């Protein structure tokens, strides 16, 4: 049967990755994957997906962020419970980290399947840039910061940044790298505002403050893909961005270790924060061809199958949710990540916080980046008050 799948994986690496899902799905089950991609994640795709579900014209399956986005759709009975579908797979046994499945489990049902783990926790560094100034590529955040003056002298951007949302992931990375796992858990999981006011967090905020001083709106590029280009060309020295940047770097033909270096958890931490993408399967309206409903189930099972997981994540540059697959083909960066994954996953902001809180956080960060009149103290105070009111 034909199964429509919506997602917002439209960048080069993402598209290549999702094609693997489609391929495996079609090969294994004989169904047809009707691709319905929508660019522009939050602003572009979300309203369409949500309104189609509540409008009674649901797609067969849809990608969304793992997290609390869909909570209410689930509570409204619009999302299919997958418990029976995967009952025989014993999914609890192979998921990398139980916390990944937490958001999908509501009132005893299983409503979504995380299909990958991706992490913001990456500092990307340009080999070429450091060649230019004749220094070795830094090994951690502190070395990196120390190299900034030299870079600036050479006319190289210390930190490449794209306008808009890419900045919003950076504070979380600094928090886990500089602040450490405990701080992350206290703030994101326990919503502990006092932790925000602690000296540990202050260090994070100060790092952010330092960062904003070396980026200027003038030098910002339109999209994070452009930052990738800057790194390859060596016009910018470093960037903090999620692992999907790697997909784009690969598409552009860059080789890790040679053209760029990657430091998970800023080279400081021992754990990665991670979230991921999940698939949801809306309840189809009455009268739908049972074959389609069956195809939903088959897709669900396919997505978390070892074969699909491997193919998908290699292309996407993210980590699979299964521990039981052979990742020897993975590149050095991914290998590093796998190593850290063994220490367990820290819940990232979009896992633990509601999208409302995330939106507020993002607003605060964007404002802080841009407006120098907001001091570190202001930032901490406002951050604390958002955490205080978070639900």
């Amino acid at each position: 049967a034909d199964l429509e799948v919506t997602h917002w994986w439209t960048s080069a690496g993402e598209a290549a990755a999702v094609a693997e899902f489609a391929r495996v799905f079609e090969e294994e089950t004989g169904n047809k994957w009707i691709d319905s991609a929508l660019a522009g994640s939050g602003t572009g795709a979300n309203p369409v997906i949500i309104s189609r579900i509540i409008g009674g014209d649901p797609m067969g399956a849809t990608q969304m962020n793992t997290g609390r986005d869909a909570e209410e759709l689930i509570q409204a009975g619009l999302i299919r419970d997958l418990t029976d579908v995967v009952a025989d797979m014993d999914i609890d046994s192979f998921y990398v980290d139980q916390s990944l499945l937490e958001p999908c489990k509501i009132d005893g049902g299983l409503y979504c399947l995380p299909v990958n783990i991706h992490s913001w926790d990456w500092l990307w560094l340009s080999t070429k840039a450091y060649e230019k100034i004749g220094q070795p590529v830094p090994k951690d955040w502190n070395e990196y910061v120390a190299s900034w003056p030299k870079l600036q002298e050479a006319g190289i951007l210390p930190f490449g940044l794209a306008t808009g949302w890419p900045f919003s992931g950076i504070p979380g990375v600094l928090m886990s790298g500089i602040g450490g796992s405990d701080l992350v858990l206290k703030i994101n999981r326990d919503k502990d505002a006092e932790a925000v006011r602690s000296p540990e967090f202050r260090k994070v905020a100060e790092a952010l403050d330092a960062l904003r001083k070396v980026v200027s709106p003038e030098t910002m590029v339109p999209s994070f893909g452009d930052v990738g280009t800057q790194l390859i060309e060596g016009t910018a020295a470093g960037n903090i961005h999620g692992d999907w940047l790697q997909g784009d770097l690969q598409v552009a033909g860059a080789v890790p270790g040679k053209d760029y270096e990657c430091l998970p958890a800023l080279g400081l931490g021992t754990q990665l924060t991670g979230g991921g993408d999940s698939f949801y399967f809306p309840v189809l309206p009455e009268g739908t061809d049972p074959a389609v409903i069956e195809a939903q189930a088959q897709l669900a099972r396919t997505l978390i199958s070892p074969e699909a997981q491997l193919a998908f994540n290699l292309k996407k540059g993210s980590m699979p949710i299964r521990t039981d697959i052979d990742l020897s083909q993975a590149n050095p960066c991914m290998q590093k990540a796998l190593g850290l994954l063994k220490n367990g996953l820290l819940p990232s902001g979009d896992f633990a916080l509601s999208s409302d809180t995330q939106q507020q956080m993002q607003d605060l960060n964007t404002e802080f980046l841009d407006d120098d009149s907001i001091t570190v103290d202001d930032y901490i105070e406002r951050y604390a008050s958002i955490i205080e009111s978070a639900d």
Partner: protein
Amino acid sequence: MAGSSSRPSALKKFFLHNLSAKVAAIPMVATVLVVFIGCTIWTIYYSFTNSKLLPTGKFVGFDQYERLFATSRWNVSVINLLMYGAMSLVLTLGLGFLLAVLMDQKIRFESAFRTIMLYPFALSFIVTGLVWQWIMNPTLGLQGTMRNLGWTNFTFDWIANPRMVLFALLIAGLWQGVGFCMVLMLAGLRGVDEEIWKAARVDGIPTWRTYISVVLPMMRGVLVTAVVLIGSGIVRLYDLVVALTNGGPGISSEVPAKYVYNYMFSGGNIGQGLAAATMMLLTVLIIMVPWAYLEFGGKGRK
């Protein structure tokens, strides 16, 4: 009297009199009642709830509003809209009028000029935003080009400069909207009685003075139409911002419609989005009611 029996009952008159007219008005009446009034009430109602992703929340009084006014992004959005709106309104009308006046001078190639000024109106804001973003891109656009050509001091970084970004929006917005305003104004100018012009010439009034003091005040109808069109566009300003600056740098070009949209869809806080929307409606209402009163109430007709 014989006739009184043939007078239809009030009820029959109400339903059957001009029946087709009433039937034909159903779409409009339905739209007004269900969509415009209904949705407004819906919006206002749910702005008092804590609805998240779906409009199902509990009543929480003015909580959403309190949060709204404590949010600096919202406050910045409002100020941006006011500033952009004022500048855009004034400049669109002003440039539209100026261009219309120039076009009214019996110039050659009038229709070519007019077509050129009007064509941006045919393009969507998304396209407008993209093109201008491309042109104003500090490295790849006009600035970069000029610097490469040797003018190293040439600076045109408005979309990257928080203090100037509203002007960047303005450039793109004017580019899109001025032509249409010009056409409206030109229509207005051409509608002015020829004899008024003659009278002014005989009186020795300079041409520019005639335009300002005599002709402009006579174009009330056109001005009202233009202000309604431009004004509704300004209040709804969204696509252009998203396409051109996406609210940045920082939050320096955020606008209320974007705030509403973000909180309703990606922020998953419908209550907050609707509270913001309600404030927008309220503002429009405050501006529109006096106008509507003048326009419809003042004449003393039913």
